[in-house]
């Protein structure tokens, strides 16, 4: 089973040179730490920044410079600032190449649920619905099962949907899976030491397994 850091590290391998990328809160934020230094990519913060740099040193903290998780951040050479309408114009207009975000559930046709649990306090969807409705390529970072062992990869989402038919790939603590255009989770890679059988048993939705499934590698 992968740690959160390992999930982030595996997702970082999906990043391609020249991409503009939006990273959600949680595990996705960690991905930034593992993107190869050989790649030129630009991270977007949906509150109005292209070119997120590392967290500031104590003397560089600026309350007027935060990310979408409200954390203090820095800029990099070549950064640009803009307003929220422009930020979502970028997202909605398909200019962001890759969106990485967390999920509570994903269905076998690529629906995602990650904003609301009925009966619990509703905090709001923030930018998630805009991102999932607009991004060209969405990779989900998530735990394969809930704490009480229920699969979160389902035939249909049970929680309120954030967006439909939008997820392209999932990196969980157990596996890398792609969503088939015809529906179904295509198993692509196993976490080190995790068997195909375990993944199959913990995937409630339709799982498609073809040929030998390799173990993940981390450079």
């Amino acid at each position: 089973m992968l740690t959160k850091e390992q999930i982030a590290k595996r997702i970082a391998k999906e990043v391609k040179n020249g991409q503009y990328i939006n990273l959600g809160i949680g595990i996705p934020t960690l991905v930034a730490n593992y993107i190869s230094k050989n790649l030129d990519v630009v991270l977007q913060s949906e509150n109005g920044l292209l070119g997120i740099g590392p967290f500031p040193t104590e003397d560089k903290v600026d309350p007027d410079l935060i990310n979408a998780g409200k954390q203090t951040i820095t800029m990099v050479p070549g950064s640009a600032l803009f307003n929220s309408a422009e930020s979502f114009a970028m997202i909605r207009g398909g200019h962001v190449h890759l969106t990485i975000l967390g999920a509570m559930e994903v269905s076998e046709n690529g629906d995602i649920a990650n904003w609301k649990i009925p009966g619990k306090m509703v905090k709001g969807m923030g930018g998630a619905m805009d991102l999932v409705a607009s991004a060209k390529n969405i990779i989900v970072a998530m735990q394969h099962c809930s704490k009480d062992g229920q699969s979160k990869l389902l035939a249909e989402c049970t929680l309120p949907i954030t967006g439909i038919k939008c997820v392209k790939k999932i990196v969980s603590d157990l596996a890398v899976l792609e969503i088939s255009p015809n529906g179904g989770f295509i198993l692509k890679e196993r976490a080190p030491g995790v068997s195909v059988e375990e993944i199959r048993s913990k995937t409630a939705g339709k799982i498609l397994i073809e040929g030998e499934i390799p173990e993940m590698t981390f450079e």
Partner: protein
Amino acid sequence: MINKTVKNAAEAVADIPSHCMLMMGGFGLSGIPENCIQALLERPISGLTIVSNNAGVDDFGIGLLLKKRMVKKMISSYVGENAEFERQLLSGELEVDLIPQGTLAERVRAGGAGIPAFFTPAGVGTEVATGKEIREFDGKLYLMERWLRADFSIVKAWKGDTAGNLIFKGTARNFNPMMAAAGKICIAEVEELVEAGELDPNQIHTPGIYVQRIFQGVNYEKRIEQRTVSH
């Protein structure tokens, strides 16, 4: 050039009535109109509908207005980080209308720009789509969303001039420019107010035509929600 200067926050918000629709710039606690929020606390008004991406925290920002029970309804995209908010919501004292962040930004932009409705893919297939027109364009489904406009909008800028021209700083810009344009009366508080002609016309983020009142704020706290540092 037309002079929009008022003395201070108290004068700027003096005629904001109960039960009006109010927009407030800011993302989290960044770029919020601290002075006007303080001045509003002194006014005997209630029943406000506030359009703001977030709802502040318990003891800062819009959270202060909530605590004084001045707010009837919040129109926001994300309202976590606020226990009093949660209490009022669960007890039915407060209404909340949750809107995807990009849709919120665009609805406010549309309000200022005279676009009564537009189509966006955000929310298709979700409960956000309930009761909304759904339409296919070029093989993809979209929701029709309406503009948002307000009686007053209150924004916070870094620099401003007496003609109402505004320049924002960093990510404190966020929703402020769209809200400036979408308020019937826009009140701008700025960290530094200069004479018309001192700002470079090429660098202005919000042209003065959108701003009806402007003043130089005092004692900005600029509280940080998540101080995150590297070593």
